[in-house]
């Protein structure tokens, strides 16, 4: 069936090509293939630059003039970093030869291969890359809508929400309670909630030492759990309490008016409440029909081409990337692999089997870093952990080792952001 579809698509393209030749005396061979990338985050901006480097005509569609990066935004919450250190423009990407269209992409027609923009204009593509990140599911947790997010911020998309939660923490009295709701899998940045709890605990310990921090979790285990929990014992004893799924931690409803989180077995009220709600692939992926019932986008692990829509590739947090976590590091790696695959496909060649790497650094304190690394390759149609590669930081390591990892974390951020935006 997909073969028949492909043949029909080819015939259709040929017909359009013939028409174009009649009217503009251009042949298909002289028209360079066009690639459109939607989303200027770590995935999309990387992919656009890499496609350009490979000699393709690339248009990057991004609605925002300034991109606010999520990695290290937990340090902004803790007052350890200005938000400006997280903000990047696409000037260098444009200078590298990528056409930037600063508009919202509102629709995709996979049949005519056309992206619709907010102002009614459109862009044609031969291949489309969607890197839209995540959308907060305001329909998933009863009581948690956009109005509630103004009272109990998610701060899971860096920017205004980060600053709002920061202001609330600053305004909280010493002796107050910070309550966080952590979501079930999958979600953006698996160690993120626990890094956030750590750095907020650092802020509270330093400025409001009588305060408490409660994490209500929809999971029974989390990324780098042993490392986080050991460090919490050392740095923040009796400050952080983690309630797992099996001990009644799953938040099933929220009440913004009273800043209350309701679980199956109790109610928890906080002075500052951070709800990290369930998420799904960014809206444009849903509109394009690239997301399945899970809300995320199934992909071919070799090319990142959608399993649902031909000629559309999905990278970054929006994709179902098997064992790879939803991280900026992953998105950056996927952007490069996807660009290489598209270049091969447009030349009529088969793409090569990729190997991808991810590393997630987390800070437990300003000079205490931990990491988890993995190597992934396609196996049985999904990106799978290469056994024996990667791993987490050792459980027993001297402070110098943790300090070194905190330096590596910052170095990774500087290296990657200068590669993507510099």
């Amino acid at each position, binding site marked *: 069936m997909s073969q028949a579809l492909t043949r029909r698509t080819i015939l259709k393209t040929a017909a359009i090509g013939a028409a174009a030749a009649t009217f503009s005396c251009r042949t298909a061979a002289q028209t360079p293939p066009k690639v459109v990338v939607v989303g200027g985050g770590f995935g999309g901006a990387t992919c656009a630059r890499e496609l350009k480097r490979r000699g393709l005509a690339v248009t990057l569609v991004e609605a925002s003039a300034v991109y606010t990066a999520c990695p290290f935004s937990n340090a902004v919450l803790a007052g350890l970093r200005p938000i400006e250190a997280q903000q990047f423009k696409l000037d260098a990407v444009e200078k590298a030869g990528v056409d930037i269209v600063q508009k919202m992409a509102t629709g995709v027609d996979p049949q005519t291969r056309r992206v619709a923009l907010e102002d009614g204009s459109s862009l044609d593509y031969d291949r489309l890359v969607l890197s839209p990140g995540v959308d907060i599911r305001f329909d998933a947790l009863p009581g948690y809508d956009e109005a509630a997010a103004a009272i109990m911020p998610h701060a899971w998309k860096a920017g205004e929400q980060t600053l709002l939660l920061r202001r609330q923490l600053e305004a909280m009295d010493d002796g107050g309670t910070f309550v966080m709701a952590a979501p079930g899998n999958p979600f953006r940045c698996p160690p993120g909630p626990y890094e956030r709890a750590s750095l907020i605990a650092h802020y509270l310990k330093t400025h409001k030492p009588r305060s408490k921090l409660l994490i209500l979790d929809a999971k*029974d285990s989390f990324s780098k759990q042993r490392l986080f929990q050991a460090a919490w014992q050392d740095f923040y004893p009796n400050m952080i309490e983690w309630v797992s*799924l*099996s*001990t*009644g931690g799953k938040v099933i409803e929220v009440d913004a008016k009273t800043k209350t989180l309701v679980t*199956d*077995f*109790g109610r928890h009220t906080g002075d500052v409440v951070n709800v990290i709600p369930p998420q799904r692939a960014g809206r444009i992926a849903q509109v394009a029909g690239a997301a399945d019932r899970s809300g995320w986008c199934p992909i071919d692990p070799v090319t990142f081409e959608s399993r649902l829509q031909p000629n559309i590739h999905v990278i970054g947090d929006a994709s179902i990337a098997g064992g790879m976590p939803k991280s900026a590091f992953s998105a950056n790696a996927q952007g490069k692999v996807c660009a290489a695959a598209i270049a091969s496909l447009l030349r009529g060649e088969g793409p090569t089997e990729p190997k991808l790497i991810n590393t997630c650094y987390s800070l437990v304190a300003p000079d205490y870093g931990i990491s988890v690394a993995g190597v992934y390759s396609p196996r049985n149609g999904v990106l799978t952990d290469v056994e024996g590669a990667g791993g987490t930081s050792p459980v027993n390591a001297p402070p110098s080792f943790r300090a070194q990892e905190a330096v590596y974390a910052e170095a990774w951020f500087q290296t990657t952001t200068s590669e993507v935006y510099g």
Partner: protein
Amino acid sequence: MARALINVPAKAKRGDIIEIKALMSHPMETGYRTGPDGALVPRDIINRFICTYNGEEIFSADLFPAIAANPFFSFTTIAMESGRIAFRWIDDRGQAHLETAEIAVE
């Protein structure tokens, strides 16, 4: 057996439909897994759950190895009279864990 969590409304009006929740922390070891030494880990599951309302059974379940760890039940009943709602979990070793909650019906 480990820790149990129950949720029964403290008060209800006669005739109200009330929701009851019960979660037992338990590994639900299937008996099909092998341990680090290659030998099968013996089966250890909760195989029976019973809820009574003033001594009368209102909900029960037989559990099997395919049921995941930390079994969670949520069900409804009609509030008839004040009294005690009791929960009992029985594991493969025959051990029982009992929890109770009082409900006031007006």
